[in-house]
């Protein structure tokens, strides 16, 4: 069976595989069927303090089938290609167990295409020795800084080669590379432990992780400084968010709410998310765009074979669009946007973001800062989470603002809020858009999905910060 998978690696569409799929789909009694095959490889390098904890390589291959019958789905994932016809039949049988209201998927033109990434310095081609040498340098810089107890370095690169075919005649081969790096400095003094980190990534381009020596020094300095930093007093503040954290805010606070699978079967939520409704000031524009070249969340076709497009989620403060799969688009009478994505062949595609960002406004950083009597400047991120209405996100770096000036460094803070009121409370948007490519997005057990998010500096009034 491995020989068949090896087959797929050949660039350009492949007659053998196309015939195999055509055979498996012949005479099956379903409204729609799609088949995915996938081959991937990954390299992981993990440091913990002085020790190189893990250096490993892996390969993965498999596929899945999704069948739609009478409005319900059957899904079968597999490791082996043998008995493909029986697997398709099982997916059809599963779909028959349920019967929801039948519907037609948002219509799609059949596509036959091969997509190969164009990169200058592909991380998967760099020798292991060179990767290790670079990470050794970063690790040594952090470890040799004052008060540093330990480090964490997590490097991962990989390549995914996917084949998609459906019963409508589409056949798409796409290859995608991805790279993430996180550097963490852990400082300790007596019983106090503090950490600071840097998280970044790329579409597989290795140069994105080169030349970070000064940043490595900086996170070590910051971790040590946090040991003696005070904790902010919990309560409501005016907060100024840097582009990284504001990007996380755009992703967590509004992006997830724009994913139509949360909305399409929930009438109450549909009323909340009515297109044309005002969500923020005229200066607020939020966009999801997989068509921007060379970001981690960029791709040409989603995992349902839908070509991608730029979607304005909010334009001029007004809700203008949302993210769709072919199912959610059909059921809500809107257009498929190309946002049905999977992390790998073990999962069916669900509605996900790609590159999500707040478009730049006109305010300068100094203007936004200058107006704040007392507030908090929050930078960088540990993470974020949302329950649609509520969100939390945590800043890796925070400073008090007093009388329009940055004051003392604070311990990391967690911000929280209600999406609807917080969007209204954004009162200034900066002119300095930056995209952040670190981390990954999780939803429905599918983590980490490569995405990026971004924003200029933004200012939010009345934001709740947790503290002691």
């Amino acid at each position, binding site marked *: *069976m*491995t020989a068949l998978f*090896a087959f797929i690696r050949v660039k350009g569409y492949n007659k053998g595989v196309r015939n195999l799929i055509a055979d498996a789909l012949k005479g099956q009694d379903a409204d729609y069927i799609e088949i995915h095959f996938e081959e991937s490889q990954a390299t992981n390098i993990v440091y*913990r*303090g002085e020790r190189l*904890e*893990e*250096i*490993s*390589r*892996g*390969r*993965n*291959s498999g596929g899945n089938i999704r069948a739609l019958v009478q409005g*319900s*789905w*059957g*899904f*079968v994932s597999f*490791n082996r290609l043998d008995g493909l016809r029986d697997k398709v039949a099982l*997916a059809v049988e*599963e779909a028959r*167990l*349920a019967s*929801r209201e039948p519907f037609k998927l948002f219509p799609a033109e059949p596509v036959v295409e091969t997509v190969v990434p164009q990169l200058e310095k592909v991380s998967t081609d760099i020798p*292991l020795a060179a990767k290790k040498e670079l990470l050794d340098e970063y690790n040594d810089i952090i470890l040799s800084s004052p008060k540093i*107890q*330990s480090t964490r370095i997590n490097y991962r690169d990989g390549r995914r080669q996917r084949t998609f075919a459906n019963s409508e005649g589409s056949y798409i081969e796409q290859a995608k590379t991805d790279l993430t790096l996180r550097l963490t400095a*852990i400082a*300790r003094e007596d019983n106090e432990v*503090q*950490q600071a980190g840097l998280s970044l990534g790329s579409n597989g381009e290795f140069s994105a992780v080169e030349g970070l020596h000064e940043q490595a020094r900086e996170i070590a300095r910051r971790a040590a400084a946090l040991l003696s930093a005070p904790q902010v007093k*919990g*309560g*409501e503040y005016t907060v100024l968010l840097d582009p990284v954290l504001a990007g996380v805010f755009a992703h967590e606070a509004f992006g997830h709410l724009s994913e139509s699978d949360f909305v399409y*079967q*929930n009438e109450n939520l549909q*009323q909340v998310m009515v297109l044309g409704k005002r969500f923020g000031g005229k200066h607020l524009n939020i966009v999801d765009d997989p068509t921007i070249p060379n970001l981690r969340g960029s791709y040409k076709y989603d995992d349902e074979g839908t070509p991608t497009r730029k979607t304005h989620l909010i334009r001029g403060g007004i809700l203008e669009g949302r993210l769709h799969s072919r199912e959610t688009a059909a059921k809500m009478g809107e257009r498929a946007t190309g946002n049905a994505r999977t992390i790998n062949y*073990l999962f*069916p595609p669900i509605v996900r973001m790609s590159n999500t960002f707040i478009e730049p406004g006109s305010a300068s950083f100094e203007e936004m800062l200058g107006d704040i009597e007392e507030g908090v400047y929050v930078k960088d991120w*540990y*993470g*974020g*989470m949302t*329950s*649609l*209405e*509520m*969100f*939390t996100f*945590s800043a890796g770096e925070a400073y008090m603002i007093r009388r329009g000036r940055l004051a003392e460094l604070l*311990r990391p803070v*967690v911000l*929280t809020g*209600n999406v609807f009121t917080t969007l209204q409370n954004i009162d200034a948007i900066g002119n300095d858009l930056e995209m952040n490519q670190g981390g990954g997005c999780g939803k429905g057990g599918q983590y980490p999905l490569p995405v990026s998010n971004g924003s200029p500096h933004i200012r939010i009034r009345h934001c*709740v*910060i*947790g*503290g*002691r």
Partner: protein
Amino acid sequence: MEHLEEVFRAARREAEQAEVFSVSSRTVSVQFEANELKQVQTKESSSTALRIFREGRIGFATASGGGGWESLVDMAVETSQFGSPASFQFPSRFHRDSSKVPIFDSKVEEIAMERMVEIGKEIIAKIRGHTPGILCDVQVTKGTSSVSLINSQGGEGRYDKSFLGFSLEGILVRDTDMLFVGDSASSCRPDFIGIDDLADRVIWQLEMAKKKAAVSTKLLPVIFTPNGVASALLSPLMLAFNGKTVLEGASPLKDKRGEQVFDKRLSLWDDATVAYGVGSYPFDDEGVPSQHLPLVTNGVVTNFLYDLQTAALAGTQSTGNGRRVGGGFPSPAISSLRLCRSGGDVSFRAMVEDMKEGLIVEQVIGAEQGNVLSGDFGGNLLLGYKVENGEIIGRVKDTMIAGNVYQVLKELLGIGQEARWVGGILQTPSLYCPRVSVATKES
């Protein structure tokens, strides 16, 4: 599986020592979305991991799915050039004579997809019987997996495991107000979990959340329900007891073995031997026999969690906690944690009645985003209730809690009588803590 021996033989030709770990699984799940059956899915997966010692260094590679196992040896040899020095031995025997941990029940295989669909419908019917407007996402999942392990010290073993789980997430939307409720149940043995228990707990949440209550920014006593303990307090503890965190000196507990750190009435076990527990196993993913390991005894820190490599570096023995996430590189991790009390327990009702003003925490989001390493927790209250004068008066929103596990667990006001399993990996009673910081919007 069929490649295990082949990979092992090929690896032995290239390396001083070799170990091949292989896991394969088949799961079936039925998924309801917004009260209706949306999807039925069958997943088959398998993976093989090779670890070698070559010229004294560790090499590691994995292959999942149908292909790639032929290149395992080459990939492991390549990584071994840079790997850390091998400082331990693979175990030669995986089982203790007396121990046999039951984790497989053939009844799981007999549960038909149609029956799983019925289970899902029954759960939803019960919840909607209480609150008709609620939208439920329900998953009923069953599965079996088999694990095989062989190493060049002569160690060899395999076992099968079964699984059945139900989970429910309900959402009730009124204007822009959203209420999330939910719970789950899982076991290796279908008879051990019931629909009624799950439905009753969710209905209780709906009852308590019927009204809204206000809270102001201050320090308040808090009762963490078993779900609350899992979502707010568990992460910093898991990290602090991890032998790796201890070894690198980043755990706040690193010099605290033998010291009283927690309330005297609290004991904590890592227990991989719970009969039909979803976290149980006869031997860990490196072949070390599983244990019932005390981490905290009457408030005193007693042990940390180790795998082979970390234990060797720390000059101690593996505790049988070498786990592989997704079949990958072994690392110390919990099997299942059991928080137990020794005396002084009170009923949930008595804890509530004792509160003049306080909070009950069921679920927080974002609790893991703070400085978890130092024991901090904090997050937005996804589901929590206000208590006034000994009575639960309603649900609290737009509120954050923040604290430090070492401060809140040092002296408790009470420990609940009933311990419950959460997510199959933590068994805990409710914990009544004296002072937790609460921050909210000023209205």
